């Protein structure tokens, strides 16, 4: 049967403990550094970088390290399911939160033109003018659909 395969005990992997230590220590390091970034970075958009660090490097590394210690295949499958789910939901949450923050009036910082005007930086002499594509103040018209 197929489901018996999921419950067959796994044999001892060579170097499994060393690989687990490597992944778990790396993941712990990145989790703590990302959490420090959440505390210390200046605004919400840069704090999201710290949160992504915790999700991507920290949690995925720790769960991969746990995979080497699994007794049966079903444990590996469950850990892989958690990994895939976090892989897809972490960017989705960050995207929704960034949109809500822009919509809620959080200032994302000065643009290049404003910095040039305030003489903070020199004019980078860009070939193409970058137009803002999303302005929450302007209410956009709904596009007519063909359906």
């Amino acid at each position, binding site marked *: 049967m197929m489901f018996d395969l999921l419950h067959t005990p796994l044999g001892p992997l060579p170097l499994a*403990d060393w690989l*687990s*230590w490597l992944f*778990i*220590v790396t*993941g*712990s*390091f990145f*989790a*703590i550094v*990302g*959490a*420090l970034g*959440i*505390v210390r970075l200046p605004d*919400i958009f840069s*704090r*999201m970088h710290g*949160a992504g660090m*915790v*999700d991507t490097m*920290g*949690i995925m590394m*720790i*769960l991969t*390290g*746990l995979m080497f*210690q*699994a*007794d049966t295949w079903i*444990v590996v499958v*469950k*850990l892989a*399911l*958690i990994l895939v*789910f*976090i892989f897809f*939901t*972490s960017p*989705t*949450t960050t*995207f*929704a*939160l960034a*949109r*809500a*923050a822009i*919509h*809620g009036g*959080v200032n994302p910082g000065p643009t290049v033109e404003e910095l040039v005007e305030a003489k903070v930086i020199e004019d980078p002499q860009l070939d193409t003018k970058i137009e803002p594509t999303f302005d*929450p103040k302007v*209410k*956009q*018209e*709904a*596009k007519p659909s063909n359906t």
Partner: protein
Amino acid sequence: MTITMYGVAALAVLISMALSMIRAFVGPTVFDRILAVNVSGTLTVVLISVYGFLDGRPDFLDIGLLYALINFIGTIAVTKYVKFQDLGHPMEGPDEGDV
């Protein structure tokens, strides 16, 4: 007392959760608090999984998977509520009724 890899992982996850809870308490805007609580919830998934391995009962992974699902839905719901003051907003334009 020997140091196990599960103990290291659990300690690091607990430190990270404490740091993100600092941001949840002092965060100036509501979005900082949502971000910190989301990170803390995602770290809880790892804590549950590590505890399952530490206790020799990997069935705890089911609870961790469920916690990941609920955490995602909860964060999206709170974000949408903060953005629109409503969970069932009608779609009037390209930016309305959206996450």
